[in-house]
């Protein structure tokens, strides 16, 4: 990636590589001071400090809660419809809607739906599976899953300009800075 890149139309952004988490967080803080808002960090391990520094918020647990609720309702509805409406079996005059006997399956359906919504919801909201993403165009990025920490300022950021953004990222002393081709 050369710095004299003429055309910034095809850019995903500019990427800085850091050796550890503290350096990455310093880089994020510096970029925030420089007025960048549209950024993403890439780390080999989940880090609460990075999540906090980037101000990432998520209310993902609501998805799972709703999934569990849907599971509980459909579990009970299934048993009610079958045992009361569609296929009532009279066993010694016991009530058709014998809800205590339905608890186990309601519980299992709650867990099943909640777990499925946790996994499918996480993948869906993260946009996975995703066969192609521009960050993989940078050769150094191979180490993002091992021991390097990356910060990308997206080209969609209002203050983005390939050359000046690279210079600004250089200020926080990263191991390397590169343009990310789209």
């Amino acid at each position, binding site marked *: 990636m050369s710095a004299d890149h003429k055309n910034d139309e095809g850019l995903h952004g500019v990427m800085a590589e850091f050796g550890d988490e503290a350096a990455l967080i310093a880089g994020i803080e510096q970029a925030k001071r420089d007025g960048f808002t549209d950024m993403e960090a890439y780390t080999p391990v989940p880090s609460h400090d990075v999540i906090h520094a980037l101000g990432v918020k998520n209310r993902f647990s609501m998805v799972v809660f709703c999934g569990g609720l849907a599971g509980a309702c459909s579990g009970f509805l299934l048993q009610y419809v079958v045992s009361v409406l569609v296929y009532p079996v009279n066993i010694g005059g016991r009530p058709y809607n014998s809800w205590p006997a339905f608890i*186990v399956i309601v519980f299992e359906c709650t867990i099943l739906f909640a777990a499925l919504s946790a996994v499918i919801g996480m993948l869906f909201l993260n946009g996975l599976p995703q066969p192609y993403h521009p960050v993989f165009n940078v050769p150094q990025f191979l180490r993002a899953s091992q021991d390097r920490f990356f910060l990308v300022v997206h080209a969609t950021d209002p203050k983005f300009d390939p050359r000046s953004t690279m210079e600004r990222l250089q200020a926080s002393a990263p191991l390397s800075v590169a343009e990310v081709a789209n």
Partner: protein
Amino acid sequence: MSANIPPSVIRRDPVIGPGHTAGSVIDKISSIVLSRDIQRGWFLLLALSGMGVMLLGVSVGWLLTRGVGVWGINEPVAWGFDIINFVWWIGIGHAGTLISAILLLLHQEWRTSINRFSEAMTLFAVMCAGMFPLLHLGRPWLAFWLFPLPNTMSMWPQFRSPLMWDVFAVSTYGTVSALFWYVGLIPDFATLRDKAQNKIGRVIFGMAAMGWRGATQHWARYEVAYLLLAGLATPLVVSVHTVVSFDFAVSVIPGWHTTVMPPYFVAGAVYSGFAMVLTLMLPVRAAYRLQDLITMRHIDNMGKIMLVTGMIVVYGYAMELFFGWYAGSTAEGFMVHNRLFGSAAGAYKGLLFCNLLTPQLLWFKKVRRSLWLLFVISIIVNIGMWLERYVIVVTCLERDYLPSSWGDFHPTIWDWSLFIGTISFFLFMMLLFIRFIPMIPIFEMRSLLPKSQAGAKAAAADQSTDASKH
């Protein structure tokens, strides 16, 4: 016990051996998967267990051709090896979920290096467990009748039956275990994709990683999802074995109809599961030189958990005998007498030896730290837990209320061949797993490093002072 003592006072082995860095942990774990050469011992074991898988195929084939009559089951023992092995296998699976979910929620960091391995064990054990009720149906191709699907007969399942609860519990358990395992693997597949030297590895691991790139936004959702999955799996694992015990406890058979069944079954499941983890992990640890990642701390802790759950199981045995007397029913009293002195008395004594006496050795730290002894104990416990299910199923069914309906159970060679077949299938899958999937979670081990390096230094200092004393 240790709640009031600051952690630094308790001398412990480190979770990761001294001198490890992020790079060395990744290299150590991924090199097993990415290496091109095939170890001779691994291949030999794979071939051996592959032969066992063929035995499984033959046993299933013969069963499907001739019907369940090839087994030793008949009235009154209509549930024989199939239910014994089902409960045995599903119990073994439970340790995996306990390690990965409950210990995660309890912030037991030492679980990290053994959780992937034991989750894999769960998955394969549930597969083995699931085969038995399916094959016991006699016509397994009609297994979908178990599920509430609209059909031309206009018939629906009976949702008030514990057997139906079992269908839901076990299928949910299998699904959630697989999801939990896979979600934990995604970042590791990404690491392997980026480390793979050849194209095949990059493509296969790349597909498995689904384009994971470690974006912070993704990690935030990932962590919530993983934690919630753990939170969901925890009550699930308790419910699964509770429901399995309902298969017995909700019936009226003397010896089955007791309230002690659910806790006793759950503890027994964890107990046998930890035994199986040790049985498998001790040889793997030695063969792949993982002593730094699976330390004496893990092994010691697993021994302790086996001791605790073993004692709960023994409490269950005591309660069974107590209820036989306290129920004040002739049939219940006779059940206890029959268990102690009847046809399966040998199995009952064996069970007491395996599950009551043997685990008492685990009180001693020396025993918990002797790999060979622990390996032998873990195998004895596995046998003991199998005998426990044998005693519960067979003695109770052989002699119920009416002497006119009494009968004896004799397993046939096909009972044994199917059982051995599933054990081989289990080992076969485990062997494939340790070779092709990172058996220790890479990214979770990495997150442990900063904390454990200080711990490792302290432990190393402890050991050196220890050595100077001797």
